[in-house]
Every structure is written in C-alpha cells, then in structure tokens.
C-alpha cells in the first residue's frame, strides 16, 4: 500500500512502486484529469504538483509520492480557481488537452511569485507544450491571474467574445478519447511494422492466443467487410489491418486484445519480417516497383489548372524569376494521442473516440466491419487537437473489430510513438517554377510543377493535388497559369490532411518568389502585393469571378506596420521584415459538402442545439451556438448543446477545410431562422417580435401584444422537444473541368502576415520579434476565438518554417521532433478585417487554415531581407540558414 494526500484527501493505493504516478492516478484512482501525451517528459501534459513542486507524473514512480501531497487539476485551491477563470477569459484553453498541465505549472509559479511578469510566466511554463494556442493567450491568462479579477464578459450573439461554452470542462480536465471506458474493457494493442516495406508471416497465433491475459488476436483475415478505406471512397486502398506486405513503418498488421488488468505486453508476438526494398522519395517511386498495381508510375493523381498561355506570357514578361522549394513531412503533434473505447448497445456497435469526422468514421467503420450504417454509432470524445490527422480513421475499426468479434467492450490508447508513426503527415513537396511580371510590376504568368510525397496510401492526396494548383497563384490576379501537382506514392508515412491541404507548401514557393520578383521590378515588396491583389470582379486562376475579396484590405491594413517595421530594422544588423499573403477556399474542392443542424425548444424551456460539428479546439461549439442564438433571437444562456453523436445529431460534416463556421454556421442560421419562423407563426406575431423564455413558457412580444406559449403543454415530438426544426446547407460550387476551370469554392478567406525577426549571422539562429497578422474573416463571430485561431496557426507556421521535420525512424517522439515552445512564438498583433461574404452566415468566412499559410513564407522573406540568404528548403534549421548565409558570402 502506498499512501499519500491527493488534493487534500488521504488515499491509499495498491500499486507496483515503480508504476508511473500518472498511471496510478488514472487507472487505479480514476482521476483522469491528468493527461498523458508522451510518457517521456517531453510535453508536460501530465504535470502535477508534488509537495507544491511541478513534476511530470509520467516520470514519477508512485513510490516517491509516499507520504507527500499530490495536487492535480481535480484539486480545488483558490489559485487554481483564479487560473481557471483567467484561462476562460483569455481563451487560453482551446482543445484543452494541455490545459491541466498548464494550470498546474502556473499554480506552482503563482504560489512562489503571486504577480509574475510575462517573461516569468514564459520561463516557468516552458515545460508544457501546447499545439493549439500559440502560447500568447496562456501567458496573458497567467499574468492576469496575478492581477485584479476581470469582470466576465456578458455580451452575447454574433460579434461578441463569448467565453467558450465548453470551457468549464476544458479547465477542469476534459474527457478525451482515453478518459472514459466501460469497466472490464479489453485493452487493445496493435502489432506494427518496424520497416517501411516488409513481408511478414505469423507463427503460432493459437499458442499466443492461449497465453494468460490474451483475450483475442486478430489479423487481416478476420476483417468481415471491405479491408480498404480512404477518406475519398473511390480511392479506397488502405487496409485497417494490413495483409503482407506492410507498406509503411508503423502500419498495423495484427491486433491483440488483453484482459483488463493483464500486462499488455506484445513481446514474443509470433511474426517474422522480411524487409523489402523501400521507395523513400517520389523521384525513385516514379520509376520504381508499384505500391498499388492500378497506379502506374506510383502516381495517385495529378491536379492541374491551366488558364491562358503561361509560357507565352512569361516569354513576353519584363521580369521573370525562377526557383524551387522543398518541404519535409510535418507531424500534427497534437498532444492527445489517438484513443477511444468501443462497446455494444444491443445490436449497435458504439465507438467513442477522438475524431474530426464522426460521419465518415461511421461510414468507413461500417464498411470495414461489414455492418449496415445503422448498427454503428460514433460518439466523438473531446478532441485534444486534430489539425487534419483525426479526419482519417485510426483505431475506430480496430476496437470496433475487437468488440464486434468478442462481444466485449474494448479500449485502445496509442503511445506517442504509435501516434507519430502510424497516422498521417503533411505532404513533403518538391516545387519548381517561374513567375513573371510586366515592367510596371503586374503579374503576367506562372508556371508551376509540384511533386508531393503522398506516402503509402491515398488519404487526402487527391485533395492536396487539386488544391495546390488552384491556390498556387496566391491571392493575386494572374492572367495566365499552368500549374500541375502530382501526388506520388512512396513507402513513407501516409500523407494526408494538415491544416491547409498543401496550400502552405505552395505558398512557401510562390511568396518567396514574389519577393524576388518585386525586387526585380524595383517595387517595395508590400506594394507589389497590393498592386497585384485580387479585387472584386477579378477572375481567379480557375476562371471564377470573385466577390468579397479581402486581400487588398488585409495588405493595406499592414501598411503602417510595414513602414514602422522597416524603419526600425534599418541599419540594425540581422534585422529583417517579411510579408506574405494567403487565400483559401472554404470547404471541399468542387464537391458537395453539406451540413445539417437541428434545433429545438424543449418542454423545460431550453433551446437544444443538436450540433454534429466536432469542436477540436477551434471553437465550433461556441461559434455555431452564437450564430443560432443570433438568428433565433434568444440568449445563449438558454442553450443546451447536444452532440456531436451520430445517434443524436444530424451530419454536420467533417471539421476540415475551414468549413464549420461557414457551412455548419449557415445550416445553424437556417435552422434557427426556421424555428423562429415557426414560433412567430404559432404566436401569430410579425418578424419584428422579440422572444424570451420564462421557465417553460415562451413569451413572444410583438408591438404591445404578448403571447405566451406553454412549451410543457405541447406534445413532445420524436426528439422529445416541443418544437424542432432542421436545416441543411451545401455550398454552391461547380466541378472543375480538365483544365481546372470552374468555381471550386463558394467562399474564400484572405490574409496577410508581417514578420519581424533577427538572424544571428554567426549561428544561423532566428529570433522572431513580432508578427502582425491581418485576416479577412468576413465577420468575426467571436473575436477572441478568432484571435486564438490566428495565434495558433502562426505557431504551427513557425514550426513549419524553422524546426519541424518528421523523419521516419529518427524523429518519432516529441524531443527529436521539435514543435514550438513558449518563447518560440513572439507577440502577435491580430488585425481582424471584415469584408462580409454574401454566402457566409452574417458574412463570415473560414479562418482556421488560412492563418497558418502566410507565416512560414513571411519568415523566409524576412530572413532574406535581413541577410540576403535565400532558403529553399524548410525547416530553416540553424545549419541550413548558416549554409545559405555562407552561400551569400562566397
């Protein structure tokens, strides 16, 4: 027995003394507020206080807690209460997975330094990683927790910085994929390929099955349905469990289900590997053996956009620049590794897991398991970051298979290593091409060729190949363009969706070339962009006539900042200023992309919003409710949120492509307006009437007439509500023709960012000083959450530019794979530009991906401005910057 004080309560626990304190808290004491992100002390998510000092619970043997005081996020100290309120007020919790660790670290700091400065906070919290916020809001929250308490905002509806509606859970230790499971659930472990390409044979599986603690073993042979999936069904090629050969390192080839309480140890699993030649690079793969026999040249797909005669335009141009850009695999590195649980409810297989796409999970899992859709229910847990990778199924069919076959509940938690090796990555890109302009600096034409390493299976490769040519002009008027992007299979990790679907890679190419072109044309780099910015009525590269084009406003908003920054940098060795733009079409590319939202009034007088859009930290739980509240004319306080849950919410589509505020927001607006119309009709009131809820009574006031509707007296409908409405919205787009011409998106968002930095010329290190970000989001439904998206996207852009590169076999953890920490993200000034789009709800456009796109090229442009060094490969690690600098010196 080990005894200690836990949040002021004496506890005794029977556990092996070397067991991690995190495991004891979670598995033996049921205290799941402490999160586990890496089991290696790299992320700090599991931070708890031991006699007031922060430690990683994953590195602490429970024996060392004996007789001491352990404080976790479940604790209730005045300091924690102040911190929680400050985190909510500053939007410092997005997905919430790092929040317990942040809160505990901050609590340690505030106990020793009650009024810390921002620098103190940054230093003290530096041991906790966050992938969503960019840290600035966390610093602000902790500083403010040391000051006078803020009055909470009371504003409501569209345009108000409402605190997250799911925020209270986030600051208490929310319930993520690993945090809930039926008692007695089997523990599922995957056997994974240690090789990028290898044949394999199983030994005596029956003998292994007979081992004590082993409940079941499954292989590809046990899959009852179609053992091939893809997020884009016509490309379905990825097995849930691979049959020989395995096509990438980390691919699942077998499952073992262990009894609860047994040691889930895969040592001795009978499998023999025969490594096979592996194709690592697209250049090899284009002429190598085929990964998929029906895809010659290992070409998954080529996307193209051709408008006008680019070659002729370039030949006639006054100035032409030519150049290349290379990027690597980038890991999403959300702090929550994939996790979930499965169980049967009668004939229905229920899967609760972290996901961005419950509807797609349901379709794919049903197909793999050979079940009709009605027999699969997906309940998304809170999601500890997704950024695109949790669009693809991971463990859903695995635990689904175990539960379906055994009839017993099961659960699975990926290790950090497993999460990094087996899930999708950002596509590595090799890009080349030319851009020209006339003597006055107007862009004349672009030729672009991009090769994208799509890895072993299709995933979102087609989307990347289609999106890149559409966007690679940047938000500038381009009369002639020939742009091709090919997605090539290799034995690398599966490249899929990652915030921007290839557009950030393309922007690195085009925006660095535009700086060189502006120089050639003798124009200021910002003015060059303003001159060429798309305007209303311009046709895009795909021939789409644009409206509500906000890029000109974004760029001109940067003008005073640009002037100041250039003046400040002038004459300062190593100081540089860079700018880059973005545009991004919201929603699927030229494909249907509907959302449906249901809203009702309950007999108790609540507004019940059935909201199937997963909130992965970006804020859809709050923003969609704000839109519905505004349209309905009732306060947010009256709202109760249901879902997402495929059993309770209609399909709001996936959380991807910056579509939820726009698409699901439009559906929510329509559903709420329908409900309002229905209520007004029942009250016989006009459009100008006001609604109020008084208990179970709906009060409708219309020009001096008051009508009361007793909601409890109405017969409940199929949803248990007194009145329910539902509405769908699907963006009006057209298909792209063979030359990529058409209207692939109904709404585009725009932005531009300016980076100020200092390059250490002797070491090649880069210190960011400030980033100013102007983003046209149409209408800021919630300005605080919008700023949170901007800061978080910038942090990921910083990682892409300066430090992140996933190398299979070498950077499969969070200490060799570097993401930005506190101190790597400089102060950020966000300028919210509102050019309303007639298609968006209240004019709103998407924002979530846009914000990452300009950061990395703006950094490279600032490095070039500071030093003359042209970086053509990211990340710009110190040794690469120094090499580029030395190239200049020769």
């Amino acid at each position: 027995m080990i005894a200690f004080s836990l949040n002021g309560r004496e506890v005794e626990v029977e556990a092996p003394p070397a067991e991690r304190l995190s495991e004891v808290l979670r598995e033996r004491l049921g205290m799941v507020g402490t999160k586990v992100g890496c089991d290696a002390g790299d992320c700090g998510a599991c931070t708890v206080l031991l006699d007031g000092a922060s430690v990683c619970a994953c590195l602490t043997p429970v024996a060392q807690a004996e007789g001491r005081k352990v404080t976790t996020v479940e604790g209730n100290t005045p300091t924690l209460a102040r911190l929680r309120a400050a985190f909510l007020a500053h939007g410092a919790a997005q997905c919430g997975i790092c929040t317990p660790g942040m809160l505990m670290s901050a609590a340690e700091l505030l106990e020793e330094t009650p009024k810390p400065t921002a620098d103190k906070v940054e230093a003290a919290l530096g041991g906790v990683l966050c992938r969503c916020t960019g840290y600035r809001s966390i610093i602000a929250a902790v500083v403010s927790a040391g000051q006078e308490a803020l009055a909470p905002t009371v504003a409501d509806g569209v345009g108000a910085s409402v605190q997250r509606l799911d925020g209270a859970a986030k600051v208490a230790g929310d319930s993520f994929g690993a945090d809930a499971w039926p008692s007695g659930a089997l523990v599922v472990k995957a056997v994974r390929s240690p090789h990028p390409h290898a044949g394999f044979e199983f030994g005596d599986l029956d003998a292994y099955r007979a081992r004590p603690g082993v409940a079941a073993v499954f292989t590809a042979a046990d899959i009852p349905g179609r053992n091939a999936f893809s997020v884009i069904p016509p490309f379905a090629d990825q097995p849930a469990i691979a049959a020989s050969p395995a096509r990438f390192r980390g691919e699942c080839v077998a499952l073992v289900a262990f009894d609860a309480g047994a040691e889930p140890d895969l040592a001795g699993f009978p499998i023999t590997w025969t490594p096979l030649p592996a194709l690592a690079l697209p250049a090899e793969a284009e002429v190598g053996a085929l990964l998929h026999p029906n895809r010659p040249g290992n070409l998954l797909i080529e996307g193209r956009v051709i408008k006008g005669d680019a070659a002729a335009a370039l030949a006639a141009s006054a100035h032409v620049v030519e150049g290349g850009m290379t990027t690597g695999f980038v890991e999403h590195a959300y702090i929550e590794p994939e996790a979930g649980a499965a169980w049967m409810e009668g004939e229905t297989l229920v899967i609760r897991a972290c996901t961005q796409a419950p509807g797609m999970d349901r379709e794919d899992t049903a197909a793999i398991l050979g079940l009709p859709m009605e027999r699969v229910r997906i309940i998304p847990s809170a999601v500890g970051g997704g950024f695109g990778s949790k669009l693809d199924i991971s463990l859903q069919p695995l635990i689904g298979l175990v539960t379906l076959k055994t009839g017993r509940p099961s659960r699975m938690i990926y290790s950090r290593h497993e999460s990094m090796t087996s899930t999708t990555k950002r596509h590595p890109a090799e890009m080349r091409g030319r851009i020209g302009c006339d003597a006055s600096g107007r862009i004349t034409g672009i030729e672009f060729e991009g090769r994208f390493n799509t890895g072993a299976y299709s995933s979102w490769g087609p989307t990347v190949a289609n999106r890149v040519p559409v966007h690679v002009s940047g938000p500038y008027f381009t009369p002639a363009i020939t742009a091709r992007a090919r997605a090539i299979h290799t034995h690398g990790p599966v490249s899929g969706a990652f915030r921007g679907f290839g557009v950030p890679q393309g922007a690195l190419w085009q925006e660095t070339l535009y700086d060189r072109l502006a120089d050639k044309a003798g124009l200021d780099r910002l003015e060059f962009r303003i001159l060429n910015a798309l305007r209303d009525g311009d046709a895009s590269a795909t021939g789409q006539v644009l409206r509500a084009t906000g890029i000109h406003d974004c760029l001109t908003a940067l003008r005073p900042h640009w002037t100041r920054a250039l003046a400040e940098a002038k004459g300062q060795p190593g100081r540089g200023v860079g700018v880059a733009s973005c545009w991004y079409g919201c929603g699927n590319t030229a494909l249907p992309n509907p959302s449906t939202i249901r809203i009702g009034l309950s007999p108790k007088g609540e507004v019940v919003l059935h909201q199937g859009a997963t909130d992965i930290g970006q804020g859809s739980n709050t923003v969609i409710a704000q839109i519905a509240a505004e349209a309905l004319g009732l306060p947010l306080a009256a709202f109760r949120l249901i879902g997402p849950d495929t059993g309770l919410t209609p399909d709001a589509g996936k959380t991807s492509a910056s579509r939820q505020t726009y698409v699901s927001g439009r559906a929510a607006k329509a559903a709420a307006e329908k409900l309002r119309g229905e209520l007004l009709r029942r009250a016989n009131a006009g459009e100008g009437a006001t609604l109020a809820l008084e208990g179970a009574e709906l009060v409708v006031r219309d020009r001096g007439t008051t009508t009361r509707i007793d909601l409890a007296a109405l017969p409940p409908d199929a949803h248990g509500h007194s009145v329910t409405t539902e509405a769908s919205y699907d963006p009006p787009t057209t298909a792209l023709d063979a030359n990529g011409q058409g209207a692939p998106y109904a709404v585009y968002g725009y932005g531009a960012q300016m980076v100020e930095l200092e390059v250490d010329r002797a070491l090649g290190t880069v210190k960011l000083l400030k980033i100013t970000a102007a983003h046209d989001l149409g209408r800021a439904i919630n300005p605080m959450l919008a700023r949170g998206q901007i800061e978080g996207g910038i942090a990921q852009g910083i990682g892409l530019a300066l430090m992140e590169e996933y190398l299979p076999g070498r950077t499969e953890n969070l200490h060799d794979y570097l993401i930005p920490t506190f101190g790597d993200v400089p102060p950020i000034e966000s300028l919210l530009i509102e050019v309303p789009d007639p298609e968006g709800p209240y004019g709103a456009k998407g924002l979530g991906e846009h914000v990452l796109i300009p950061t990395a090229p703006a950094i490279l442009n600032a490095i070039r401005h500071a030093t003359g060094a042209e970086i053509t490969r990211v990340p710009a690690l110190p040794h690469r910057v120094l090499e580029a600098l030395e190239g200049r010196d020769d």
Partner: protein
Amino acid sequence: MKSGSAVLDYSRPKSLDEALRTLAGGDWRVLAGGTDLYPVAGPRLAGPVLDVTAIPGFSGLSGDQDLRIGAATTWTDIANANLPEAARALQQAARQIGGRQVQNAGTIGGNLCNASPAADGVPPLLALGAEVELVSAAGTRRLGLQDFLLGPRRTALRTGEILAAIVVPGSGLRGRSAFVKLGARSHLVISIAMVAARLAVDGDRVTEAAIAVGAASPVAVRLPQVEAALVGARVAEAALRVTSADVVASLAPIDDVRATAAYRRAAVAELVRRAVSEALA
C-alpha cells in the same frame, strides 16, 4: 495485481549501508528523478529498481573549501543554491535542462550516469574540474569526471558501485563562469552544442581558463589548446584568442537530426567566444 513480486522489484533504502547491501545482491537499476529511465521504459519500468532519493546525504549542497553536491540533488536545488560565481555556468545549465518539471525531479547524478553526449550538466562540471565519488561495499573511490564518462551511455561505474556525490575542489571554484546552449527552439531542447567557460582573472589578464564543450564529441571535452591560448590574454581581447582551429582540434562532431558536423564545428567556435565574453563580462 502482482504486488508481491513488485515489492521485491523496488527498493527505496533509507540509508547508504542498506543501499549498498541491496546493490551487492543483484543487478539493480539506480533510479533518482526518473527523468531518463522512464522515457525509454516503454509501458512499464522494468526492475529491479533501486531508488536512491530517500538516502540521507544523497541530496543537497555543502562544503567550505570544496563544493560537495549529493548525487540526488535536483537541478532546481542547484539553480537556487547560493554558489560561488565559478559555478554560475552550472546554475545556468540547471535552468535549461528540460522544463521546470524535469528540473524539480531530475538529478545531477542521474545526468552523469545517463552519460548522454548532450548532457547539459557535464560541460559546466568539466569546467569546474569536478570529481565523482563512487561508493561500494568495498569502499569509496574518486575519479575525475573526464575519467568517469567513457563514451555515449558508458561510465566507469562498476557493478555494486553507486555515484554518491560530485565534488568540486576549491581550485575549481576560482573565477567566474558562463554557460551557452544552442538549440533549434527555446525550451525543452536537446542541445546542438553547448559550452561552459570558467575564467579567473588577475588585473586585466586571464590567469586561468577552463573551457568545455558538449554534444560535439562522443563525450563532452575540455579544449586544452583554447585554454592555453586564453591564459595570459588581456580580458578585453580574450575572446579574440579563440581560434576555430584550436576549438575543433579536440572535437569530433557528427551529423544528426539536429545539425551537421560542419555546422557544429563552426558554431562551437562562436559559442566558445560568447561564453568567454559572458564569463568575463
């Protein structure tokens, strides 16, 4: 589950004698802060484990002429201690090893026994001329730190022996020091390279120089040629006496995911200059 066998797997002795008796009886893994053992442990830390954190005298700093640091002293305790200026590099390193969580648990002895080429604690201790005190049932012996660290993940620790303390002789406590760490991000970063410089000055002349570099050779090393060039230099010109040729003469950097060998050679010379300047500032 399995608590009976687990107890035999884990020992947390309350005295050094008990620890040595235990150690003599089997192949024990010594655990202090756990910050190096758990990350490579997989789902469970395999035993048997000897936890040294409850042994009296194994943690804390003491001494008048010499400085004695118990092997289980945490980085936070080192950072917060009132130490001579010669140990400033050690204290600067202490604040940059992992985050606060790791500094609160991780120990100086663990850092040495883990013997990573990138261990941030080693260059400052080499610059201090630190020795290690190794204890076994057979007695106590002292080794210079440079003789204790044999290679990546290899030390001179014998079976049945335990690192009890780090001892800095009074001669190593002269002068002032500085630690400069280079990595690709600001926190939680494994060093591309790091340098500790300790310099003693008389008037405007450097009288003593100890320069050590980590992560640019299999084991962190002192740079004798650089040290020789610095002795006798004017304070204002000392950093200029650091030549790249002298710096790289003692190094054997490799290419890895963090940087190239060529970069390390170039960067270390600059880091040495900066550390020298900071120590003299």
